[in-house]
């Protein structure tokens, strides 16, 4: 059926993009990108501002559809009508850079956004959402302060707390593939450490993740494989085992200057 699902080989990638391009008017954000995430794998995505990282994950998530010619595979199956609702129903959750919260709404509404719980009459089960939200907040977000209640509106929370809501939301739905877009931005040291621990816990739970960050020191220790994007193209793919952090940094500098990953001999 597909090349990736070759018989006898290990399981097909959870998610695969082939020859994906995305153009906005005159601007080409992605140009012929091939990208895959394997089961139980944490894939890092590095690149400068405007390299196409956020566009790439919005294609993975179904928010943007790729230009014609691009193909999306989920567990080796070609998918055509890819949308956010479809992606989420198949177990892909994202912690967006812009957090994707509705700030005037209470925490519980944000936690269950687009996935509201319903009772057997088809009506919203508000009590269950409040209770579950309260439980998640104390278990996963470690909220003990008297200031945070499921009915509090998000606008009253700090940046780290808001990020906590966004991460807990992704975690709650037992996603098979979690995408984290610059999750450590604006976080304190201890909050950053917590976030990185969370990324590791995804792999321990047998799930996959895509981890996007500016900061190579955050990305390198937790990922299995690394994609480097530059001006909408994949400039290089590395297994962490094959490259040291110093070598990687050297190559990244080289990319920034020349647009090519290959070091001159």
């Amino acid at each position, binding site marked *: 059926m597909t090349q990736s699902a070759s018989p006898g080989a290990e399981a097909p990638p959870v998610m695969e993009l082939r020859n994906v391009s995305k153009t906005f008017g005159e601007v080409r954000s992605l140009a012929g990108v091939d990208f895959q995430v394997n089961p139980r794998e944490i894939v890092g995505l590095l690149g400068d501002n405007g390299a196409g990282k956020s566009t790439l994950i919005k294609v993975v998530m179904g928010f943007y559809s790729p230009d014609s010619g691009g193909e999306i595979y989920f567990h080796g199956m070609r998918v055509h009508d890819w949308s956010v609702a479809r992606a989420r129903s198949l177990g892909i959750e994202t912690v967006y850079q812009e957090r994707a919260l509705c700030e005037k709404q209470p925490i519980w509404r944000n936690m269950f956004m687009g996935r509201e719980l319903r009772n057997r009459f088809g009506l919203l089960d508000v009590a269950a959402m409040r209770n579950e939200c*309260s439980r998640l*907040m104390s278990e996963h977000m470690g909220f003990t302060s008297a200031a945070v209640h499921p009915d509090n509106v998000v606008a009253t929370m700090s940046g780290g707390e808001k990020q906590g809501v966004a991460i807990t939301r992704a975690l709650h739905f037992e996603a098979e593939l979690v995408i984290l877009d610059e999750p450590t931005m604006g976080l304190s040291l201890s909050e950053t450490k917590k976030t990185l621990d969370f990324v590791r816990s995804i792999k321990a739970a047998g799930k996959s993740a895509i981890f996007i960050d500016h900061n190579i020191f955050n990305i390198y220790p937790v990922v299995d494989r690394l994609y480097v994007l530059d001006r909408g193209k994949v400039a290089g793919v590395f297994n962490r085992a094959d490259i040291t952090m110093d070598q990687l940094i050297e190559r990244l500098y080289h990319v920034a200057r020349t647009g090519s990953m290959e070091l001159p001999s």
Partner: protein
Amino acid sequence: MTEEAAAVRTGGHKAAPPSLLTRYGSQMGIVGVGFAMWLAFVIAAPRVFTDVDIYLAFAETTPLFGIVALSLTFVVITGEIDLSFPSVMALGTAIFCLVTYYGGAPWWLGLIAAGLTGVACGLLNGFLVASLNIPSLVITIGTQFLFRGLELVLMNGTGVPLLVDKYPQMHTLLREPLFGVPVQTLWMIGILIVEWLLLNRTRFGAHVFLVGDNQTSARLMGVNAGRVKIKAFVLVGVTAVFCGLLSSIYGYYFWPSTGDGSLLNTIASVFLGGTSVFGGTGSVIGTFVAAFIIGAINAGIVSAGVNAFYTQLAFGLVIVVSVVLQTLIDRRIRRQSLTGK
């Protein structure tokens, strides 16, 4: 389950809910304003306002615009506005008259045709706003003239008598008091309950809040923002037709100008009711209470012996003051958001 809940409660998680004032402040404010105004009217015109007749009059006339205000609340929460509903009131009622009075069809067929007219008007508004991304403030002024024009052409500018002899069922449903209670208010209470459930206990209602608060976030989380808005406009269309029929049966006559003059009361009810002009927050209960306050202003000003021209002044003032207050509150929330506290 209960053990777990108890653990949550005792396990260092002592978060207090936000105070009642924060959560219901605007609703309590409206009730306070309403009460103060009632006192003022009682002092200004004690004979009128201690008599039950004036309250029966409110209860008959307020729902004629209050019911559509309940639905308009949904559209305003999504961050849009619909100014075309007065014309939809007329167009839907005109279709009812064409089908039953001129076409000779039974009353229920007329009701179905009128309801479908409301759906069609809402779909058109919703399509223009949500699918073509045209600002609703502008395009619904356009459709207001479009629907009114269509109605005037269809009826050739003439009215239709809606007497009890010809429409007994319609009068039973929409005009005769039930156990002495004005049926218009019973309809409004019924529709309030249905729409409260729709807004607060369905996914559609949850998405109405999300789309109005932050459309991009809602879409990133898989909410179909366009469809949510279209549904809200359809809701206004259908209830506008209902209000058109209700007010025409109330006056025993369909005037081609039906709906004219309901724009100001309706919008004032929504904004006075605490629904934010910026979208994302609002309440149908607030709109319900505010509609009766607006209805009382109308009757109060007239019976207090003040020139009726002052009613328009009062409604204008209500809209301006409540929107200004919302702006100030919204700014405060944004400042809180920046500082984190």
